[in-house]
């Protein structure tokens, strides 16, 4: 199932990446090349196989549900493109 430029537009919107109309055809060709190659997975019999979500082969550890870090807003905000007091600032969202 080849991706159409309109599908690329929808995926790009979901991914929040601005894509120019002129790029859609090239992107569609590239992604279709990759997805076409991936289709070979359909040859594999996966009946009854449990999906493997990670390489971790042991139970995840639990820890106490307590605050162990924090209390330094200036460090947290040091890389902010724009800040207002102890907050990250963005363009106005609500009129």
């Amino acid at each position, binding site marked *: 199932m080849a991706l159409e430029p309109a*599908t690329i537009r929808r*995926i790009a919107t979901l991914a929040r990446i*601005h894509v120019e109309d002129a790029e859609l055809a090239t992107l569609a060709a590239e*992604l279709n090349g990759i997805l076409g190659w991936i289709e*070979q*997975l359909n040859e594999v019999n996966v009946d009854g196989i449990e999906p493997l979500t990670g390489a971790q082969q042991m139970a995840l*550890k639990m820890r106490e549900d307590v605050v162990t870090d924090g209390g330094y807003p200036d460090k947290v905000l040091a*890389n902010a493109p724009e800040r207002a007091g102890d907050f990250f600032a*963005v363009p106005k969202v609500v009129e």
Partner: protein
Amino acid sequence: MTLTDLTIVAARDGLRARDFNARELTEAHLAAIAALNSRLNAFITVTGERALAQADAADEALARGEFAPLAGIPLAIKDLFCTEGVRTTAGSRILEPFVPPYESTVSANLLRDGAVFLGKANMDEFAMGSSNMTSAYGPVANPWQRRQDQTALLVPGGSSGGSAAAVSARLAMGATGTDTGGSIRQPASFCGIVGMKPTYGRCSRWGVVAFASSLDHPGPFARTVRDCAILLGSMAGHDPKDSTSADIPVPDYVAACGRSVKGMRIGVPREYRVDGMQGEIETLWQQGLAWLRDAGAELVDVSLPHTKYALPAYYIVAPAEASSNLARYDGVRFGLREPGEDLRDLYERTRAAGFGAEVRRRILIGTYVLSAGYYDAYYLRAQKVRALILRDFTEAFATVDALVAPTAPSAAFAQGENMDDPVQMYLNDVFTGPADLAGVPAMSVPSGLDANGLPLGLQVIGKPFDEETLFAVGAALERAAGFDAVPQIRA
């Protein structure tokens, strides 16, 4: 012998014997960087003053008789590891202004053990690439050149291309890397050095810029197996800040390098061959197996039947995880911001300007395979294939102690080659991807040269948390190969 040619083992001995001090050792490496980095572009950021301050601190500690495992040893840190107060870009424009207010666990462990950081090594953007060509800070040149054609610039491999080139060219004694689909082992093979991807969970991922969280493995580069063992011993260990970090004691990897391979059963996976593979690679593989047999190991033919499906599965799982991990780069909390008409336009324009072509491609693929209606067909199926790849390894390791195979299907290629078709570039990782999906440890050891005089690596793959056997087999290959060739571009 010049200071930059020393191994870490020899440099430690020299420092302890006061043949030279840590400042002299660091100065020699900074001079090498000053002389060669404009040609190699191995470092994005050089931190000379910090390095000298760390070297002086190491000299003071050594003078007090405190011999930390890496006291005064100059290293390169892949620019994926957050370093407190030192810009960390992940090879991306979107992180160009980012200065972490914290230190990654792995780099903190190295600093705890006295290491000197020379700077941040170049890499493929967000570790996505096999050639270092996707870096927003320019390509890295491989220090090795073809005998017949010294004009062609070759790639160092990727994604940890700057790390591998720096260690190969004697700009650093060792380096950190990360391996998600082969990003330590393939550049190690291309640059004629040793690269080690430990078991998933052995080295903390905390503070390492995330690409694909279930696949990202930090690990070391060095010029010898023993030096890699020293580095891994410092880097590894349980970290409560990474929930997938293994709470398992770190053994003495250096001691493991001295173990004999006599009586070991070495598996030869018959599927580790592809069409168009350089003939010398098959020859070198057979040679490597003969060396191990001569050293007393028993060779066992094994089958890993799902090997060819590892990369297609990888190119669903890794982009899916990347599309989620990279959602954080939105121009709000850190990194680049491009103005937009509204908040959403700000996100979209920031991400369009900040991400390069390969990263954008993978985010789009990942978004697609996770999107409603396609999840089962792609992502779920890929995870089931991943389970089969792990099963292949588990069954093989029921009868053998380790596997030996080629690291990559070719030697280093020229800058600009394999760029037209993304899939062609992806196929570089055909022999390295399976171990990442399964989380098992693997190491590349330089074992010979091809007809162009370019280095080729052999790969040793082991059981989970049995890095010791890898070090034993890797050291045996290293001894037998006697690899002493050096790159044309070096300090």
